[in-house]
């Protein structure tokens, strides 16, 4: 088989850092090629060069597509050559219909006017190709994330696609949607579409990839082939981190936990916006020095449960009793939740967790400015000191605490988020998908931090979509299903199958 794409000796510098250092990357025609590496390894930068976001001249090296050297001056150029990229953050317009979104930017025209009938007819055909059973007239905002992704792929296909690039396509999908998407990629492969997939989920990579290229610190480390039987988890992880990780989860002594710190009794929540109940009669407890996992599929109500406990900022209609250390608390604002000892590390650290344009120290102290101020005036030197303490103890990698958070990698951003909430000196720490989108090395560090915190007597609620994570880190697990707590299982004596059963029935 010949190479459809060769990227030769690509080097890209950002001010102060070399993001890519002489990277070579070759993709064979008709294969599924997975690109893996820790955060900051250079995967996204490489794909941005390929799709023309960085113009010729802003990097060194050559892009050779089907034997020809390319000079991309923008995304339009790469699109014209049949390269379609689907970003992690979907680029659809929620208020427009499926077919309007699909043909946005390359409208089908008759004369100067858009031929809507032809557009709809063609869109139906491509929707069929991606196995998506929705009406083309449906507004995109009414579709789930999984379906929106399929719309994006259908859109890419409608542009005479040769090379499909997917940046972490399954990060926001549940298991079923992920399987569906991976199936589709195999399907497209049979129809001659070559795909490049960036993913952190090694299980998926192993199941689908013909070739795996590993990047580390802006360099190509290796290219593994399925044919030669080189692809397995150990090898990939070893190459990604440059060392062997035997234990994915650090060991912890499951000590006898202490008194009950958080107790939730008959919690109900109703969302006026959605017009339905989102939490139904949830009761559970967390003891001191215990990690309690909350498992469940997307939409099971895990984040909503956390938000309801954390002062209910979205103004659900909430009933039920919540006790911290035996004292009933009010659920009227995040401030009162923080004051009563709850901290919530959000799922979406960029969206509602951190203030990206501010620096590390300002983010760390934001939720507890009282601690660093005297009669409302901030002691900036004390602030720097405290931030430095966390930078050291949590191991935030940055030149200084005055670094803007937007310049940090995902893992380090998450550590800032964690530091911020630890600085509120909580009794109960809720972690919502704490390792989403961060690399293997940083994951391990965060697990280690969790273990240290628990051994110091903190109570932790761990919400996670990754079953191995919930099972590996928790003492007990509550499984949620459609707003209810369907079951409680002991983390040491359960199986993934058992949890999935409770989550899906």
């Amino acid at each position, binding site marked *: 088989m010949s190479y459809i794409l060769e990227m030769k000796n690509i080097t890209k510098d950002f001010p102060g850092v070399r993001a890519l250092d002489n990277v070579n990357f070759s993709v064979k025609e008709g294969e599924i090629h997975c690109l893996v590496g820790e955060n900051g390894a250079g995967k996204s930068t490489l794909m941005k060069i390929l799709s023309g976001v960085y113009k010729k001249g802003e990097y060194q090296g050559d892009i050779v597509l089907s034997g020809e050297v390319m000079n991309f001056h923008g995304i339009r150029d790469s699109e014209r050559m049949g390269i379609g990229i689907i970003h992690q953050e979907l680029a659809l317009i929620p208020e427009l219909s499926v077919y309007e979104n699909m043909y946005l930017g390359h409208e089908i025209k008759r004369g100067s006017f858009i031929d809507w009938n032809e557009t709809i007819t063609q869109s139906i055909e491509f929707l069929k190709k991606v196995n998506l059973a929705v009406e083309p007239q449906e507004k995109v905002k009414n579709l789930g994330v999984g379906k929106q992704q399929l719309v994006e792929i259908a859109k890419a296909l409608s542009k005479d696609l040769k090379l499909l690039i997917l940046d972490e396509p399954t990060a926001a999908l549940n298991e079923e949607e992920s399987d569906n998407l991976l199936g589709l990629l195999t399907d497209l492969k049979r129809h001659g579409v070559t795909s490049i997939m960036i993913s952190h989920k090694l299980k998926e990579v192993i199941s689908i990839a013909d070739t795996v290229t590993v990047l580390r610190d802006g360099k190509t480390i290796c290219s593994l082939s399925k044919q030669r039987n080189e692809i397995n988890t150990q090898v990939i992880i070893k190459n990604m981190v440059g060392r062997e990780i035997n234990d994915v989860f650090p060991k912890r002594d499951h000590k006898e936990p202490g008194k009950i710190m958080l107790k939730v009794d008959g919690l109900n929540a109703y969302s006026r916006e959605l017009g339905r109940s989102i939490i139904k009669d949830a009761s559970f407890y967390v003891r001191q020095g215990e990690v309690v996992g909350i498992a469940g599929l997307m939409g099971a109500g895990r984040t909503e449960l956390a938000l309801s406990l954390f002062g209910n*900022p979205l103004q659900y209609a909430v009933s039920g009793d919540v006790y911290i250390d035996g004292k009933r608390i009010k659920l009227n604002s995040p401030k009162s939740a923080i004051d009563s000892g709850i901290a919530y590390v959000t799922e979406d650290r960029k969206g509602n967790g951190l203030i990206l344009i501010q620096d590390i120290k300002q983010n760390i102290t934001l939720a507890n*400015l009282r601690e660093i*101020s005297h009669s409302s005036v901030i002691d900036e030197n004390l602030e720097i000191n405290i931030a430095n303490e966390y930078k050291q103890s949590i191991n935030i990698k940055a030149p200084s605490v005055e670094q803007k958070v937007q310049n940090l990698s995902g893992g380090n951003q998450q550590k800032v988020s964690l530091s911020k909430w630890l600085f509120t000196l909580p009794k109960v720490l809720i972690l919502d998908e704490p390792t989403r989108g961060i690399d293997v090395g940083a994951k391990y560090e965060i697990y280690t931090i969790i273990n240290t915190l628990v051994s110091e007597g903190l109570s932790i609620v761990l919400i996670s979509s990754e079953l191995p994570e919930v099972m590996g880190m928790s003492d007990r697990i509550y499984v949620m299903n459609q707003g209810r707590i369907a079951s409680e299982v002991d983390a040491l004596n359960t199986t993934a199958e058992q949890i999935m059963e409770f989550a899906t029935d």
Partner: protein
Amino acid sequence: MNRLKNYFNELVILLKLNVREYGMFIALAVIMLIFSFYSGGLFVSPRNLSNLLNQTGYIAVLAVGMTLVIIIRHIDLSVGYVAGFVGAVAAIMMVQYNVPVGIVIAVVLLLGTLIGIWHGFLVAFMGLPAFVSTLAGMLIFRGALLQVTQSTGTIIIPNEFFNAISNGYIPDIVSIPGIHVLTLLIGLAGVALFVISELRGRRNKLRYNFKVLSTSMLITKLAFVSAIILLITYILATYNGASWTMIIILVTVGVYHFITNKTVIGRHIYAVGGNPEAAELSGISVKKITLLVFASMGFLSALSGILFASRLRSATVTAGVLFELDAIAAAYVGGVSAKGGIGKVTGSIIGAIVMASLSSGMNLIGMDISVQYIVRGLVLIVAVVFDVRTRNKK
């Protein structure tokens, strides 16, 4: 030789790191030089500079409030007519009802604050976009201004004390002809305050083992800033000295600078601007901050109204027209980001002075008013482009 090289290296790094903040001052200096040249030195004459600062007053205080409004991602279009309306209310109270001037000022400042709270309430609690609610406010207070001035037309304010706010100068302690001693003393006090606070900050930092400027660089900085403060006060002192307006601007900027940079409330304001969702989840009430910022804007609109009415010694039907746009332009020229979360009140004040210098300079050299508008528009674009460019680089 080597020490000199180190010194210049540090200077260059310092300038590069702070190109955005210093850029504005450089621009101001360039504008002043150009106009001085073309007006044969008239522009930097004590009389003109003094007038320039007095004229900037009512826009400057608006720009300070507008900075906070834009930082939290909103806008206030009503400030001009609120200022006009409040000025008219002040005039009517004094002229028709003979209310003592002290009470008048207190009442109208309160009135402005209440109007601000009303706008803040609409934005924060009713969910109206600020553009809409303050556009409505613009219409309403324009109407209100017409209502109260309809029967009388322009109201002349005979109160000497009130008119002194924008036309008077602070009294001197001793009378030496040709020089205003108190103004000089205030300048010296300012220099002393600046030097002490810099040294104290440095000592504090050293105690925490943080990096500080090298001694030679510190001396350069202290000498340079002190020289500028002294130069300005000297120029003003050779005319009538500092005006009450200048004192009001200084106090307003001082207070707002302190609040935004040093206090918890300030942090909350920047947090709400930087990411409202994250702020809310950090225990900050976005609604309360929004209400507070609009209330402050209302208060400063009233102050602006007082300054303007005092400057004209009257309340007129057209008072406040287009103030809001001058204030918004001053804030943007001063480096406030339209995306929210970024901006400084000191920057906006410099922005206001830059825009006022342009107008004053162009008037001095007799440029046609139509060209003046175009030039100011272009300067606004250049300033924001420069700001965005240097921001992205960092």
